[in-house]
């Protein structure tokens, strides 16, 4: 009996091995190689013999793109978020006056929490400054481009996730509140864009947003503007493109969460004295939270490494790591550096992917 279960598990593991681990191993190996004018454009290869190849590998490319600094930054962000998660509820609890304890007890708790926070930060700073001679080498960045691209990608991903949420939530809410017989149609309309190629839809935005495009012509004809707006080849166009492309990924999980919700909960909240707005904040919003979190990750994760939208809609000063990777690979033909960029991007993405998985599991239980 047991071998059947093993066989069943073997299928996805084999899939993972063939289509993820093996390609990843190849990319990892290339990232540890050196650039060369050859085919393939890096040394050493298997032709040099296995042992020579292994000893010829080094971390030069990672040092070149400033992987240490990237990691240090992400470690800091994770640390700060973790610290906030631990401290925030305690401080909040301490700040809300409780009838059972006096104001002095609350103040004492608040001060203790703050003192612990200060001590923690002091200890961290001490450890960091002690390690600084080693770390300064580690975080030293020979070429600032890659580090800036990672940060800029992060910024664009965060902002566009927020914008998508801002637009997606009302859409999902409207869908969930619409009449029963309308919902399949509305759901269909949300999914409909997937019927055409993603590339064609992004190209269509070029036609809309360019200086001679439909948007500018419309606004000029109406007379709202006298000079055409420059939207294409700026970050604004990138945001529009990302929000447009990833909107269904935000709408669908939020819609699923809202649709699952019992309508009588909102009625019960109103019955118990809530206004429509406070019923939303106290009941609907907390109950749709798993959907919101899932939607945010589904938008954030692919956006971070997005390449097509910034290269088509973005300008020369739109810096995104996906675009840098492309240029490194095809324009510079520097496969080792491009591979190193890809490996770091994947390692960065592991954090949100793990968080996403945990959110999904929490939702199920």
């Amino acid at each position: 009996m047991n071998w059947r279960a093993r066989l069943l598990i073997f299928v996805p593991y084999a899939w993972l091995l063939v289509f993820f681990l093996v390609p990843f191993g190849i990319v990892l190996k290339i990232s540890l190689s050196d650039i060369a004018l050859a085919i393939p454009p890096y040394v050493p290869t298997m032709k040099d013999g296995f042992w020579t190849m292994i000893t010829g590998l080094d971390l030069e490319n990672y040092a070149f793109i400033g992987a240490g600094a990237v990691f240090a930054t992400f470690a800091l962000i994770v640390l700060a978020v973790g610290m906030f998660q631990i401290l925030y509820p305690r401080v909040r609890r301490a700040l809300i006056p409780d009838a059972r304890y006096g104001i002095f007890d609350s103040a004492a708790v608040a001060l203790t929490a703050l003192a612990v926070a200060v001590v923690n930060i002091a200890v961290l700073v001490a450890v960091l400054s002690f390690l600084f001679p080693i770390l300064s080498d580690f975080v030293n960045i020979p070429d600032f481009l890659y580090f800036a691209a990672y940060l800029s990608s992060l910024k664009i991903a965060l902002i566009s996730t927020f914008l998508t949420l801002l637009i997606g939530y009302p859409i999902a809410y409207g869908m969930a509140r619409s009449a029963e017989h309308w919902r399949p149609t509305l759901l269909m309309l949300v999914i409909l864009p997937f019927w055409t190629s993603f590339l064609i839809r992004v190209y269509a935005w070029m036609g809309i947003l360019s200086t001679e495009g439909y948007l500018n012509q419309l606004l000029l004809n109406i007379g709202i503007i006298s000079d055409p707006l420059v939207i294409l080849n700026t970050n604004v166009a990138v945001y529009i493109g990302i929000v447009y492309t990833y909107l269904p990924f935000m709408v669908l999980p939020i819609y699923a969460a809202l649709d699952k919700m019992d309508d009588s909960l909102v009625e019960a909240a109103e019955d118990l004295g809530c206004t429509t707005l406070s019923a939303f904040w106290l009941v609907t919003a907390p109950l749709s939270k798993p959907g919101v979190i899932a939607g945010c990750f589904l938008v954030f994760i692919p956006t971070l490494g997005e390449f097509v939208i910034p290269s088509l809609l973005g300008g020369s000063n739109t810096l995104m790591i996906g675009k840098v990777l492309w240029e490194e690979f095809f324009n510079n033909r520097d496969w080792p550096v491009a591979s190193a960029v890809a490996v770091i991007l994947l390692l960065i993405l592991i954090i949100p992917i793990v968080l996403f998985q945990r959110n999904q599991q929490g939702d199920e239980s």
Partner: protein
Amino acid sequence: MAQPKPDTIFAPWDDPTAKPLIQFKNVTKRFGDFTAIDNLTLDIYAQEFFALLGPSGCGKTTLMRMLGGFETPTEGHIFLDGVDIGPVPPNERPVNMMFQSYALFPHLTVWDNIAFGLKRSDMPKDEIGDRVEKMLKLTQLGKFAKRKPHQISGGQRQRVALARSLAKAPKLLLLDEPLGALDKKLRHETQFELMDIQETTGTTFVIVTHDQEEAMTVASRVAVMVDGTLSQVATPDQIYEAPNSTYVADFIGDVNLIEGVIEVPEKGAAKDAVSIRWSSTETPINATSDLGLAAAATVHFAIRPEKVSISTEKPEADNVMSGKILDIAYLGNISTYHVEVAPGLIIKAQATNVRRMSRRNLTWEDHVYLSWTDTAGVVLTS
């Protein structure tokens, strides 16, 4: 049924000076072409336990939702304590509702669920705690205060919902099929708990149910609804013993309905005595009625199975019929005998099983006599 009643009995509906808490005045509610409530007028008094009973789709839930403020009447007015509550939104009404699905907030603990309404009111914080504790005690939920709704059983959830809707001490509590999700045994226990709580708190309860037994058990008055109108509004015993239509008689409990024609009264008969000819060959049924029925009027004679006696020897009674047992439904405490008294007419008679099985002598195909007094049944014209 104007029976003399001692003063202590709670019956404000018989007192013309009593002021009703809720008044429906010619209320009509339409959803598109469909009329859910049709020109309905009804008074409900303070501290009543009022049951709205009817088949699904009769408009009872719509009526309740109008009281809660989730629907507004298309025509007519609803008054609560003399105030027209038509334009008042649900969050400003002194009315709370217990939902059929319980509608407990899944992200909040039992304690926070009960405190939810209080936190929205202007009650001081320390009083909220006391009030919640009191509600937990009333519904025996003290142990579960820290749990989330999915961590407690169906019966406990029902009590949380009740505690939450009672916490704000509403003038009126609406219960929408409150016991529908419970199993039969728990439902019976909870019915008595509900009555106890209603008496302790003195709140007016309006309950919607399709379970007639439940309505009869808990309510001080029952309204039988059909197609958006009220068929009869009366106390449970009146509804059962003196239904005003064949619909009500048939809907509540089990009944034998015999169609017939009023005979010309004999000379010297009592004023309220009527005899109903239901077959050209059989003797007419003797009954009483104060409706003043004219001869040749078509009526229905309704009699409850438990008021029909069954015996093997011909008894002395106002009405005696003979027939053959077709079927016996054995329910443990009672048995219902289906007796064919004339081709096509089957009368149900109920007998309490005071003896054990082996000692009883009635069985299938037996020839038996059915009998009842002249006051046992009701004569209905509609």
